[in-house]
């Protein structure tokens, strides 16, 4: 072009030039995670603001008497079960990073059995989804148990804030599981390699964030009285 053929001719058309050299989707997912911080901040502060303001039981930690049956009950939260589900979610995060690593290192040769196992992206994607589903199972169990003990989303302030907060988290986990299963399906169709690492990475970032949120919820809602 007469105008000015300068050294920086536009990049080859099939590659997208970006200012930072980072992929747009990764920038976007981090922005999204930042936004999610405010979302859960609102939910968590609401739970804490209403903590101890319920007019009727059940309460999270303090004992209460059922007005109908007149029987005295303990605080409704079931720490052992939740500890287990918390552990499950943590492990799902571990599986997730292993899945990502496996995808990134697809090209490397696998010598030992161990390397072969560690290197199986399908295995770890599946494990992550499985553990995520297990967590959801625990939550379903917890919710039904609470309903049986007389705590619904309508019962009192605690019920409303608790179910909404943990429910929102559960919804995030569900979305994550669907995402993972989609990746798994693609992986089965055409094995995911380093070229796809970014797609897995983005999903992983989301998944870990959901885990991180649970770390906060577990302490603020379950452990602190």
């Amino acid at each position, binding site marked *: 072009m007469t105008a000015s053929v300068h*050294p*920086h*001719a536009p*990049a*080859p058309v099939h*590659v*997208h*030039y*970006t*200012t*930072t*050299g*980072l992929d747009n989707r*990764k*920038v976007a997912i*981090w*922005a999204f*995670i*930042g*936004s999610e*911080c*405010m979302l*859960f*901040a609102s939910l*968590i*502060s609401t739970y*804490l*603001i209403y*903590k101890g303001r319920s007019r009727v039981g059940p309460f999270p930690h303090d004992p209460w008497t059922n007005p109908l049956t007149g029987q005295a009950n303990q605080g409704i939260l079931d*720490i052992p079960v939740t*500890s287990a589900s*918390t*552990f499950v979610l*943590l*492990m799902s*995060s*571990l599986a*997730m*990073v*292993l899945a990502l*690593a496996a995808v*990134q290192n697809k090209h490397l040769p696998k010598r030992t059995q161990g390397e072969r196992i*560690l290197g199986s992206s399908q295995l770890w994607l599946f494990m992550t989804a499985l553990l995520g589903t297990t967590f959801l199972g625990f939550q379903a169990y917890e919710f039904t148990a609470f309903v049986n003990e007389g705590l619904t989303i309508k019962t009192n302030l605690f019920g409303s804030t608790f179910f909404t907060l943990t429910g929102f988290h559960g919804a995030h986990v569900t979305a994550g599981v669907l995402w993972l299963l989609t990746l798994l399906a693609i992986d089965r169709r055409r094995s995911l390699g380093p070229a796809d690492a970014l797609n897995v990475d983005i999903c*992983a*970032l989301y998944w*870990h*964030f959901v*885990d*991180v949120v649970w*770390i*906060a919820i*577990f*302490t*603020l809602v379950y*452990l*602190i*009285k």
Partner: protein
Amino acid sequence: MAHEHVPANPAPVAHGAHTAHGAHEHEHPTAWTYIKVGIILTLITVVEVWAYYIRSFVESRAFVPSLLIMSIAKFIIVVAFYMHLKYDHKLFRWLFTGPLAIAVVTIIALLILFGQIGSNLAAS
């Protein structure tokens, strides 16, 4: 990659775009690191739950702070290693910590305003 075609460009966010990106490939922790991190996280969780069952400790003033510290530790570990913020482009660090800071400050401010903490401050 695309940005190979353009000169190292002066945009602050672009500083070390290459290096950071390259780093992403090389320094990337091994599966073993991840497993170690997983073990640490598990241990902290065990301690948390354990603490929950020591009545004397629960009564003590140290209970809440220590629980908070432990969960913050877990939080940081996951973000730093599993979300590999530790190794990744610093832009992401800002994109995450900025909003996180505002979120945390907002939570604290709201709790004060509703007298849930430091109730001597707010009249409610």
